[in-house]
């Protein structure tokens, strides 16, 4: 018989051929464990009284503390409002220009705007507005603007959204021009940044650009875009036609991509973020709009 050190056994016994039987000891649980276990049972009763717990036919027991996830959420939201009230009231009252002149408010707006930008804008414009690999999403950290880089214009862009409308020119894509003509136009556009040396093609493209194809009506006589360019001496409407002479490309500056832009057209879409916009989707409140405007303006290209 093995030594059971005074511990009670359940009486079951197996496998005792060798004289060393396998026995089932009835060791008590450690006291600390047992009392902790009892304490959790008692706590569950207390919990039922304090917090929402049991469902019933027409609701549930609300608990004497009256706690609810949704009230806590509301209080949390309200607490932030109170914390930031002093700043927010000023931000709401002052114009963008005035905020930009007040150093404290400016820092507050930039840090708030940075968070907003990270959540909503960075996927299209890159972290810090440095742009993304895929064409069609402009860099915001440079001073090459489609629509304009002053505070008011940036605010207008973000609030109302923008759609760039570059028509298709190739016949098969719904335009009016042949493959050869689109090639010539491509050569001319590339020549503006010194990338096309085929003088004859450039010249034919030039004639189309300033003639039948009507490119100058949007990109300007010199092809330097709707923002800086002019046509026959008068300024262009703010339609976001890019500057084709600065080697900063919205879609890409290799021959194939430029040809695609001209042949099939483009229509880049910047979503509208103001609550007044009819567009479906995520919207920002006026305060966040101001903050993110100031943040974008601070990225390096603000005018």
């Amino acid at each position, binding site marked *: 018989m093995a030594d059971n050190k005074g511990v009670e056994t359940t009486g079951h016994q197996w496998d005792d051929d060798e004289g060393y039987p396998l026995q089932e000891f009835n060791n008590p649980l450690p006291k600390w464990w047992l009392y902790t276990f009892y304490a959790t049972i008692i706590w569950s009763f207390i919990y039922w009284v304090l917090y929402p717990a049991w469902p019933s036919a027409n609701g*549930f027991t609300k608990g004497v503390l009256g706690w609810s*996830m949704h009230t806590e*959420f509301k209080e*949390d*939201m309200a607490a932030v409002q109170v914390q930031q009230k002093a700043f927010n009231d000023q931000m709401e009252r002052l114009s963008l220009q005035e905020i930009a002149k007040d150093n404290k408010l400016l820092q507050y707006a930039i840090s708030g705007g940075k968070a907003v930008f990270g959540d909503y804008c960075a*996927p299209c414009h890159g972290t810090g507005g440095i742009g993304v*690999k895929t064409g*069609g*999403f402009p860099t915001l950290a440079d001073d090459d603007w489609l629509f304009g880089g002053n505070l008011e214009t940036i605010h207008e862009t973000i609030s109302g959204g923008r759609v760039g409308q570059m028509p298709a020119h190739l016949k098969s894509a719904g335009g009016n021009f042949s493959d050869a003509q689109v090639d010539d136009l491509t050569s001319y556009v590339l020549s503006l940044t010194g990338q096309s040396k085929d003088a004859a093609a450039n010249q034919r493209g030039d004639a189309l650009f300033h003639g039948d194809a009507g490119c100058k009506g949007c990109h300007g006589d010199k092809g330097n875009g709707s923002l800086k360019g002019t046509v026959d001496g008068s300024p262009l409407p703010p339609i976001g036609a890019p500057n084709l002479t600065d080697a900063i490309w919205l879609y890409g500056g290799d021959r194939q991509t430029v040809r695609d832009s001209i042949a099939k057209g483009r229509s880049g879409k910047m979503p509208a973020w103001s609550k007044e916009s009819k567009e*479906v989707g995520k919207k920002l409140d006026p305060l966040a709009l101001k903050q993110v405007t100031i943040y974008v303006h601070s990225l390096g290209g603000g005018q």
Partner: protein
Amino acid sequence: MQHATIEKSIPLMAILTLILVSIGGIVEIVPLFFIKSTIEKVDGMRPYTPLELKGRDIYIREGCYNCHSQMIRPFRDEAARYGHYSLAAESMYDHPFQWGSKRTGPDLARIGGKYSNEWHQAHMLKPQNVVPESVMPAYPWLQKAALKYDDVDVRMQALSKVGVPYSPEQIANAKQDLAAQAKAGGNDPGLAKRYGNKVPQDDFDGKPDQITELDALLAYLQMLGTLVDFSSYQAQTR
């Protein structure tokens, strides 16, 4: 009854376990079906259109839920990032629902309308092209695979059996409605009549002459979280 009697008879133990567990289940689950605040009344909810439904199937097939939840919890940081917390009513036509807490990527409950179709196309083709630090895998085949939708009406019929209120008319027109929604600049009166005039009709995948799996997936993503109008929603404090 002796403890030993129960322990030594497997059938008896199984039956008693079943009874015990059922009591727990009944007490916890059954009242939820009757509590009014479980599913709040909201305006705007409608069943998925056939195209969105196919998109949802692709979402599940590709296992997007392994990294993305569709449940915004009522916390300040979540509300600040994603928008209003999710309501139970918003997933009332979901079988199965897409809640969860596994978030390798962001919550998608309100992704609808956040980005343009062009962005989604680029992102699904190769996420790192738009978000360099992304760990999301690429799904380039979605834009190439033609959408198979000859079973969409049967899918809708099955869902109507578990309580999704598809009308016989919606089921009968499922295939036309699906094709109509994937048309660029579409403006199909039938689709609008059956699902409301807020349904976006678009060439979601950037390939106007083909209905691909990406059309379906993007139609689904672009409507997520957009149905309930929160400017008129009054939270019931409970």
